[in-house]
């Protein structure tokens, strides 16, 4: 179901948390709202869910104005940042809660809960309590609970924020795959740009309560609309007074064309190498090289080199 936000505004006291936001979210898409903490992204998600009330503006889901509809009537699946498991209920009871509210028969609930636990791979944990699950399992239980009511829209608030790096990466690709199978319109909020780039069909970048840019993640990465977006989506360095991606710079021998520079530091991260340079105009910049490139160049601190923008930038606009 498509979602339309029109001039949505919300303040807490004198602080405007969401400031005149207008955007649309495509039916069946996996949209990621990306922004630093305090950018208003979680509040925007809660406004869509109906967990907060708007000061002004409208929210429409599938063409229906839901601005004044109570959260319990919106039929929205919401996953909370810390999963909000019902701690006194088993996994199966948690997942079946929304169905019980809808007065479905015991047999129907059992069947549907069984299916959902299968999908989120928790069938063997049906009778456990949330405290007996790992973080990733709790997250999947929360997802199954939200999906049980066959929501029009699925909203995920920092779904992987509280998990280990390894589990995050696993769940990320699991979520992508899952969304392919069950293409319910999904909005996910995160502050992690890598996560956003990996998961999103559509990206919304927020800062200070306002939308900075929306669109295809690769497009936004290649042509950011302002310096904030450019800096937030990936590292930037200053070359000749212009902000560029450090992987769009190239290091060559001292006699090659380009700006002369001296290597001031080398950091090897294993999968990539960061080289700090001091250019002839006495400005510093840094270049991101693949490990193989770095090996070919076999640089060491103090080497004289030239630096230039790559002829073929890594990403075309």
């Amino acid at each position, binding site marked *: 179901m498509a979602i339309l936000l029109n001039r949505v505004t919300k303040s807490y006291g004198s602080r405007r948390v969401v400031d005149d936001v207008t955007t649309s979210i495509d039916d069946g898409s996996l949209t990621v709202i990306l922004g630093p903490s305090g950018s208003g992204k979680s509040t925007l998600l809660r406004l869509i869910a109906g967990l907060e009330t708007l000061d002004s503006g409208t929210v429409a889901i599938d063409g229906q104005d839901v601005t004044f509809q109570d959260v319990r009537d919106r039929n929205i699946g919401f996953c*909370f940042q810390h999963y909000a498991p019902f701690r006194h209920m088993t996994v199966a009871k948690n997942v079946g809660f929304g169905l019980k509210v809808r007065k479905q028969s015991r047999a129907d609930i059992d069947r549907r809960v069984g299916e959902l636990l299968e999908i989120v791979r928790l069938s063997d944990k049906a009778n456990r309590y949330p405290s007996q699950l790992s973080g990733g399992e709790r997250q999947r239980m929360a997802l199954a609970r939200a999906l049980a009511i066959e929501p029009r829209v699925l909203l995920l608030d920092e779904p992987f924020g509280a998990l280990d790096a390894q589990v995050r990466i696993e769940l990320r690709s699991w979520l992508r795959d899952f969304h392919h199978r069950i293409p319910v319109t999904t909005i996910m909020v995160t502050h992690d740009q890598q996560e956003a780039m990996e998961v999103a069909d559509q990206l919304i970048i927020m800062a200070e309560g306002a939308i900075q840019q929306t669109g295809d993640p690769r497009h936004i990465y290649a042509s950011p609309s302002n310096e904030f977006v450019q800096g937030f989506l990936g590292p930037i360095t200053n070359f000749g007074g212009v902000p560029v991606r450090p992987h769009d710079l190239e290091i060559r021998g001292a006699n090659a064309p380009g700006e002369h520079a001296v290597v001031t530091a080398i950091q090897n991260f294993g999968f990539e190498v960061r080289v700090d340079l001091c250019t002839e105009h006495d400005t510093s910049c840094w270049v991101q090289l693949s490990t193989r490139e770095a090996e070919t160049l076999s640089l060491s601190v103090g080497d004289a080199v030239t630096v230039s923008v790559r002829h073929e930038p890594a990403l075309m606009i």
Partner: protein
Amino acid sequence: MKRPTGLRVVVLAYLGVIVALPVGYLIYRAFSKGFSSFMSQVTQPGAVHALVLSLEVAAIAVPLNTIVGVGAALLFARHRFWGHRVLDLCFDIPVAVSPVIIGVALVLAYSKIGWWGSWLATQGISVLFSVTGIVLATTAVSLPYVLRSTLPVLLESGTDQEEAARTLGSGPLRTFWYITLPVIRWGVLYGVVLTLARTLGEFGAVVVVSGNISGLTQTLPIYIYDSWDQNYNAQASFDNALILAAIAVVALVVLGILRSKERNHRGDLA
């Protein structure tokens, strides 16, 4: 791990002097003349009447303060409104001031010398020297226990689970019954046990309003004091004091057992 031996000795000695020795001696004296003597003292008509009255008063005051306490805890935890701090403070006044003051204040307000006393009398309601007055005094002095034991649990548990229930379509009553209440129940039950202990044991406020009419408005604590002070029947006071203490202690122990059972079952802290 370092053993805090010194600290342990201090705590044990302190508890020994203040609790264990006096209560232990009370138990010893209660049974010192044999079990049949004990039984005859606690089955005296006056003692039985006092016990029944105390239980009746508790049966009204405890549910009343439980409902009010849980309601107030929800109000304070989930809503910020003008004057909530003052209201919150008001709940502590009945236990902060001496019970005698509560008793005197109730008599002042609701007897014939008070503003509403005459009107109440025409309605057939008398507060002074009556069971109504005892219930009122007891309810007043046991007011904040459920609130105080529930509010921190409610604040600590946050609103996530309640919000999750709402997104799943649950209305306020269902959310309270199936989500909020299970979260706070141990806090509430602990408050209920404390309220029960206080209602059964209240002396000061009750003695002022009740008029201490033997066989009519005498609660068990007053009967115990009366036996000791007026009737020179120390044995009756020992034996009935034991009954009174036992009820509260049993309630505490039962709560503890129930809670540890559930904790073992679920493998976490409720």
